[in-house]
């Protein structure tokens, strides 16, 4: 008896599964529950012919099946009805969705963030310093005494005889080393100012400064760190070259070029045909600088490096006039990530 009811249920379910319209459902309904010829109805009608001991169970099971079938038919009919209605419900998903406003970081901030995150991964601290600096921190302690031609490298805005708008973020190095004992490693990003204004120079720009001091730091570490950094910042396949240069606060000093990201080193307008782009200045911290901050240069060595954030933005995003970075035309700013 039970198996017969189960078989009926299986048959019903398979037919229900195939039903694709309300009409199909009506047919199924008549087939199983029709008053005259419905299978389940007939089964119930035949109950009195069964053995009296079988009768109660069979009746119970058949009734349960009847309720089950009606319920399933009702559910399925709702689904089918809903589906047929949805096709004409008036939603045009090709219309623009309701506007969620959003803004962006300034491209300089975006690059700044990227640079910070690379050095944070290497365990560097981030530090800031004042933008109006004393002559001592901006020049003297960086091995650029008054009347030193090195000062010609940076056209300076003066506030007074001994206060300037900082021309570089390097003074933060000095302040950081004054406050702490090595080992230390930090970067500092911020605004800097020089008296220049043309397509590639703005009187205000951003720089990153980095410093690492420990007992066994050497030039190979400087190279490794900056290669790691540049590959993360630009692309893992760029070529990188280190060549000797001069900065008053490092020795040996290096300038670091990457293969032109536009022409891949073939030579183009961006790299003035050389295939190389100068992106970083760096070097081993000059012992004179250590003596300004009372660090024993026999015990400790270190490296320092500097990067123009604006320059990276200009290179990465193909900006042709760096002055646009400070005009803040919102159509311009919205182009960047």
């Amino acid at each position, binding site marked *: 008896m039970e198996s017969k009811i189960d078989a009926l249920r299986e048959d019903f379910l398979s037919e229900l599964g195939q039903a694709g319209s309300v009409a199909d459902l009506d047919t199924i309904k008549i087939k199983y529950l029709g008053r005259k010829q419905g299978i389940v109805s007939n089964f119930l009608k035949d109950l009195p012919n069964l053995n009296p001991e079988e009768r109660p169970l069979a009746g119970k099971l058949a009734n349960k099946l009847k309720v089950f079938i009606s319920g399933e038919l009702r559910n399925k009919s709702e689904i089918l009805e809903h589906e047929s209605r949805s096709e004409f419900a008036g939603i045009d998903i090709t219309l623009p969705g309701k*506007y969620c*406003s*959003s*803004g962006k*970081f*300034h491209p300089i*901030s975006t690059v700044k963030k990227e640079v*910070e995150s690379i050095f944070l991964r290497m*365990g*560097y*601290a*981030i530090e*800031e310093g*004042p*933008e*109006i600096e004393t002559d001592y921190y901006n020049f003297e302690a960086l091995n650029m005494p008054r*009347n030193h*031609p*090195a000062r*010609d*490298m940076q056209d300076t*805005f*003066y*506030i*007074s005889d001994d206060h300037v*708008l900082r021309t570089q973020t390097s003074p933060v190095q000095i302040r950081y080393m004054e406050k702490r004992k090595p*080992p*230390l*490693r930090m970067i500092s990003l911020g605004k800097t*100012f020089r*008296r220049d204004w043309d397509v590639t120079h703005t*009187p205000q720009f951003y720089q990153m400064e980095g410093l*690492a001091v*420990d007992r066994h730091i*050497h*030039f*190979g570490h400087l*190279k490794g760190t900056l*290669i*790691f950094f540049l590959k993360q910042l630009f692309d893992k396949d760029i070529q990188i*070259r280190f*060549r*000797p*240069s*001069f900065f008053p606060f490092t*020795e*040996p*000093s290096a*300038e670091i070029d990457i293969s032109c990201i536009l022409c891949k080193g073939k030579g183009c307008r961006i790299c*003035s045909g050389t295939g190389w782009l100068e992106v970083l200045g760096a070097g*081993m911290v*000059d*012992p004179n600088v250590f003596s300004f901050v009372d660090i024993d240069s026999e015990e400790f060595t270190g490296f320092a490096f500097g990067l123009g954030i604006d320059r990276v933005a200009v290179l990465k995003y193909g900006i042709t006039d760096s002055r646009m970075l*400070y005009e*803040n*035309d*919102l*159509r311009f*700013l*919205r182009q960047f990530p």
Partner: protein
Amino acid sequence: MQFSINWLKTYVDIEEKPEVLADALTMHGLAVDGIQPAGDDYILDLDITINRPDCMSFLGVAREIAAIYGRSLRDPPLTLEEGSEQSDHLTSVRIDAAELCPRYCCRIIKDIEVAPSPAWLQDRLRSIGLAPINNIVDITNFVLFETGQPLHVFDFDKLHKQRIVVRKAEKGEKLATIDGEDRELDADMLLICDADHPVALAGIMGGKETEIFTGTTRVLLECAYFSPVSIRRTSKSLGMHTDASHLFERGADPDCHYRVLDRCASLIREIAGGTILRGVTESYPKKIEKKEVLLRPKRAVKVLGEKVETRSMIEILENLGFRRLATKENKKFLRFEVPSFRVDIHREIDLIEEIARYVGYDKIKSSLPVFTDTYSSTPDFIREEDNIKILLSSAGFQEIITFSFIDREHNRACCQEDSLPVEILNPLADQMSTMRESLIPGILQTIHFNLNRGNKSLAMYELGNVYRYKDINRSETAEHRCLAMAQTGNPDPETWYQNPRPFDLYDLKGAIELIVREMGALGIEISPEKCIYLDPGESAAVKRGDQVLGYLGKLHPALKKSFDLKQDVFLGEINFFQLISGDRLKYYCKELPKYPKIERDISIIVDMHVNYDSVKQAIESLKIRELVSLDIFDIYEGKELGPVKKALAIRLIYQDPELTLSARHVDQLHKTVLASLENEVGARLRS
């Protein structure tokens, strides 16, 4: 600086193609910025770093090329033929300022003929962009570029008493220089004088009176060493930058004078004829010692991180002209005598740099350092800044960065506190002369710029420093980080689903509330208060207790006019450091309420002037423990309410953490709320 390869070839063999040579020079620290073909020659544009004045000459660059390729350097030919007359019998040199001029040498040549230079000499000068003048001047220029040692020629017959005196100027003393200017001098400037008058500004420029001319027959050829600092100070303060001053202030070779004088004198005799008087007349009161520097090969290896053989170090340095001296006392040291032209070398680290240059930076192996510390800190505010910027971005604000220096008047017009602006002594323009005390002018200028370019709907912020003097003494400056925000136009673009509406002050307030809420800042209140840059009718302060953190409101009509803005702007500025430094929410898990809440709406009519805060106060002052939230959800103004009345609909939610509230209890609480509203703000229930 331009270098002709053909000219360089007279001192060193060069077989390499120009590009190959350029690359080699670049990788040894003499960066080649460009290569220009010029007939059968190539001109290299070298960017010589300021520490290498020795390479600001053909011999200097040739010396590097010789060292790079292991070739020998050919000194310029020298066949000095002197006459019998003694130079010392005719002239004398006296130095009264030995600190500024430790050495002065000269030679006299007589019976010369001033005429145009021969073609080869003219060509040499033209190849590096110099215009030929006459044989004597051209020869001194040629020797200057060949050796890097500036020379000067005086018409010997115009020197009073035919003597040279080197001394400091007296304040107010005057000298007419070759360029036709009358220079008024300061004490401490170094002068070359004859027996009575100044005849040259030492190391910078000669005087008009003793300049050679076509009739000159006897010349005094000067070759001296001047203190770099003195030359630089004088050239700066007079605004005179010459080839000579450029070299002297970087440091000329203190021990080349005889060689250079002999070279120059013999070229003059060869080209302009005449007789070189016997001997060099010289004053050398302050002996310039040869420098010796110790090198520990171990230290070099430590700094470079590359196992360079001691043998290679010695070879590199010897190729560059360093002379190895005996070191008996200690085997760990090598002792080197520095060639006189290398004014940049004083210390061991300088030698290590030379070694690194010639080992090749590219040959040094790269690795990442292992640090011996276990912690590095980053100030909290840097993370806070990022968080707030991300919030503002998602709230629709675009970040901008403007210049820190602005127009003085703009600054004053937006400065809420007493203005103590920091002024730039040498600004690029008047509109960029004052360090901003507020971010508002920069924001307004940016809005103006954008509106003019058709960007009519704007939401922007800037997070940056403002600057001022700490006090009226104007000795110390202070920098504060501020956050400024502004909105104008419509928040949404024109859409198919709703009518456009303009920004209003509640948009901006909402953004500030967003920041305050998300950073968990406690005790921040916004209440009406006037501000210099805001419309007095729509102006509020952001406060923590009595401390004003900033302002927000509608732009003052006067500023709207002066910045030529045609639409309303809502804006504000908050001191960021003050904002983040107060009490903050402690993030610690709280149990969620287990018992149901009961919502009750209340609709009241109050006088128009009653503000929402006082309504809120009337309810909150009851300190009903079960009242968990209080929100206004409708404001209605209509004639039927009566004149100057408005209706407020407020939803109150009651909940008890310990038990299910009974409706009767809530009814009672609600009754006290209504009573308080009636008493405190004159409210009556709206029916």
